[in-house]
């Protein structure tokens, strides 16, 4: 009789294990995540979560689909090709006025990596210095919006600057074809510095333009019908990002399994550049603040991109971050 509690516990353990396996096998959710751009360190947290089995632990089978020119992550999510996506927050606000059925559930980059660079020799230090100079932003909404927002914020006339089409190739900038060009601190900035150029930087953040970047989005429908899945996906993703921040080298090693540009030095630099944007020293990873959303909203309104105020509650939700972290940022 003495062995009965032990036996009971053993049976219970077996039942639990069997049940656990049954659940794990039976209820594996298959989802597709549409990334914003091609595979690179920018999405390191996703790769880490996948490779280290964090999604599997949450009973999710994840397929990461890279983006690229012509692929709109938000559109992919809306059309149902992907369940989750990585998209620009300002597009979310803009689209909400058209009844877009997607919501941001967290943001990966809490500081926008966008920076306007100019050669030190150009003497351009402030947005006002761009008067009469050329700036390559056209064609990339995110860049143009931020430039306009800065000008707007500083009370400058955007027409004083000469806006020219943006080229992903920086060669023209290096030779002075354009005076200024918008790049990401996690990409173009690194390459330019690697190329040995002395640069002046204009950060939109310094001029009252605060934009999140790479928000994680999903559909209203999924949130309504399967909030558990959303929580599980977000939890695993944030865990992956946390790992990536704490061990950037390992994160880059994993990233290299996906990245097309298997330049590990570049990817590592990109990773290090991303760290303070993901983890700023304020708030938990992925956390969103209402004032930033409001500021983004105002910016879009001020620029006339939004012709009428949007309802921010249909743009983002803190439901899942609260679920994961609690109420404290």
């Amino acid at each position, binding site marked *: 009789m003495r062995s009965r509690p032990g036996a009971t516990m053993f049976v219970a353990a077996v039942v639990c294990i069997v049940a656990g396996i049954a659940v794990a096998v039976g209820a594996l959710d298959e989802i597709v995540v549409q990334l914003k751009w091609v595979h690179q360190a920018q999405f390191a947290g996703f790769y880490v979560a996948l490779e280290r089995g964090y999604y599997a632990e949450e009973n999710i089978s994840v397929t990461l689909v890279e983006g690229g020119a012509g692929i709109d992550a938000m559109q992919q999510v809306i059309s149902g090709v992907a369940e989750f996506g990585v998209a620009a927050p300002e597009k979310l606000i803009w689209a909400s006025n058209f009844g877009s059925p997607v919501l941001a559930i967290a943001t990966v980059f809490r500081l926008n990596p966008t920076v306007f660079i100019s050669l030190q020799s150009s003497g351009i230090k*402030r947005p006002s210095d761009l008067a009469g100079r050329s700036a390559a932003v056209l064609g990339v909404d995110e860049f143009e919006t931020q430039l306009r927002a800065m000008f707007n914020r500083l009370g400058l006339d955007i027409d004083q600057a000469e806006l020219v089409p943006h080229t992903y190739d920086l060669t023209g900038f290096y030779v002075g074809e354009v005076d200024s060009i918008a790049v990401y601190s996690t990409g173009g900035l690194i390459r330019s510095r690697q190329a040995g150029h002395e640069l002046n930087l204009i950060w939109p953040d310094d001029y*009252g333009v605060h934009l999140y970047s790479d928000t994680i989005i999903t559909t209203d429908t999924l949130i309504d019908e399967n909030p558990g899945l959303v929580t599980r996906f977000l939890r695993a993703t944030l865990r992956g990002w946390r790992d990536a921040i704490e061990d950037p080298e390992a994160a880059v090693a994993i990233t290299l399994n996906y990245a097309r540009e298997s330049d590990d030095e570049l990817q590592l630099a990109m990773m290090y550049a991303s760290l*303070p944007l993901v983890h700023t*020293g*304020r708030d938990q990873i992925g956390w969103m603040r209402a004032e930033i959303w409001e500021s983004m909203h105002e910016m879009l309104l001020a620029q006339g991109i939004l012709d009428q105020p949007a309802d921010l509650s249909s743009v983002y939700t803190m439901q899942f971050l609260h679920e994961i972290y609690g109420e404290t940022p």
Partner: protein
Amino acid sequence: MRLRVKAPLIFLVLALLPAAIIAVISFRAGQRTIELNVMEHLASTTLLKQDELERWINDISRQLEFLARSQLSEDTAQLILLGPEVLNGNAASNHLIDEYLDPSIQVRGGFLTISILAASDGRILVSTDPDLEGKYRESEPFFLEGLASTYVQNVSFSQTLERAVMHISTPLTDSTGDVFAVLVGHPDFAEISKIMRQGFSLDTSEDTYLVNAFNFFVTEPRYGEGYALQKAVRTAGVDAALAGETGAATYEDYRGALVIGAYQWIPELELAILTEVDQAEAFAPIVQLRNTIFAFAAGVALLALLLGVFVSRTVTRPVLQLVRSTEIVGQGNLDHRTGIKIRDEIGQLASAFDQMAADLQETTASRDELNQEITAHLQSLEKLRRRDEQLGAAQRIARLGSWEWDIAHNKTLWSDEMYRIYGVSPEQFDVDAYEGFMSFIHPDDRQLVAHTMETALSNKEPFRIEYRIVRPDGVVRNIAASGEVVCDESGEPISMLGASQDVTERKRAEAERLFVEEQLRQGQKLESIGTLASGVAHEVNNPLMAMINYAELLKDEPEGDEIAQYADGIIKEGNRVATIVRNLLSFSRQDTEAHSPADIKDIIDASLSLTGAVLRKDQITVELYVPDDLPKVKCRSQQIQQVVINLLTNAHDALNERYPDFDEDKILSITVLPLEKDGATWVRTTVEDRGPGIPEHLLGRIFDPFFTTKPRDIGTGLGLSVSYGIVTEHHGELTVESEEGSYTRFHVDLLVNNGWTVMDREATG
């Protein structure tokens, strides 16, 4: 294991064990003490550092507040009234920088940059870092909080500066008390790291560092560079501190090195502060102590080992010598002595051993003598045994038993052969006394025996006697005994000694010889009778034939019926006589007869013709059953006739014994029947009488020679024996069945073809 090895090992273990236990206990105790001391020290260091950090932050906050309450405030207020554009790197802003901000930094230290932010929009109006001017900080906590009071903002990443920075802010108020600007300073982060390091010498691994709520380093740890806000740290200490705990523990630090660490959470700064020292360093003194103890233990062990070797040698050497001596003595060399002269217990043992060897030497000598005696004794015993065996064998061969009768105690002692002669086993039968012996004597001879014994006793003379005994199985044996009387000094007989011999065989041989002689005489008599008979027969035959012929002639005469009737009578009786004569002739010729197929009926008729007269005389009814179609039997018919006559004679005697006069049961029957037996055809002739029968116990012996139940004057005891021989010779079987008081039945079974050929005649004839 040998003692030589065991003893030093035991000494070694005895020496090492307590040393090891003491070493372990003292090491553990020392380690624990040091651990506690170090933890206490680290905790106080941590408190001290925290105190210093807070004081430092307080100091620079005060510095900033002091600056805010200086003339700066008034000057700035005036400048702002002129409009923001005047401040963009012009002389007005330079005035503020040169007059107030730069001196504050340079004189007091602590700040890297100090800036003045417009309260209205968070724009940096003036800054010691010109690059910052014109930028906005409208949503930063240090700006928003700084509008109200002095505020310390935790370390965060500055995109503009591309590094982690801390902010302290304080409001600038005009004469009316309205806040019109915020004074913000970036404390020199290196200062904090410096404070953390302060007081630690280079030769210690002791270190204090700060970690923020997100597990990231805030100050540079001793063994890392560029860790601040770049590297996360997850150790037991950090996790405990982030959980709000204050304490100390041993764990692996960010390098994976074992450390003792004290940790504490500073809620006001939202920072964890940790002070750690490497265990290797902390435990160095105790390790030294441990090494000392080990060295000491090794010394003690060596000493113990030497002692053990010495002790074992003093013990094992004489012991080995003893062992060698034991082997030598054991091999028989009793002259050997150990030669050990020590006073201790082993010495006693050795001298006891020597004494033992000496004693052994003595006893060995007497033992040898004893052995010789024993050998001689055994040899004589063996001789005796063989003599006894010889005697026994001689007695057995001679059928001669010896005996002794102890008269005084009435006990008899028989030799083995005696028991064999008397047909009993010593265990089976009690012949202890004279009476026991007498019970064996044939009743007819008891008186003779008793008389002989008495005579011998009274005359004290030797005696010789022959008598019969009846064995328990009923067999009668003839014994020849002789003995003599033994007397004591007074001439009183005390015992009788003698020998008895079974002389039955001799007696039988004697009887046989007598019988053969008798037979010979009988044979000669018969032969002469035969010769006489054949002569008479020849003589009788011729006149008999003439008589019969005459009677035939007479019968043919016409004189009258009466004459013919007489003639018939003469012829009939004459023929009978002729038959008798012929049978007599053929019987007397038997030895020369060959075998030939014969009709049993003829044989029986011939037999009856010879015995019929006797049977009739004694009024015996003869019943005869002989079928006509019997097969002929290959035999010597005269011999078979002799058998049949014998059986008829026996039957006649038996019937006469039972019925001396006429009786209607006085019947002798002869039956002949064919018989199939063993796959051959036989003819069985059965002669049965209703006489007294044969007792069952005698049935097996009736075919023995000289066995007879008849009075001596009637039977020779040879009839059935001879008959049995004849039938057996014919490959036939002679068997008997009888019931006492009812009947006796003899069966003569003869093979129709017994396999005899003409050649056998010579062989068997």
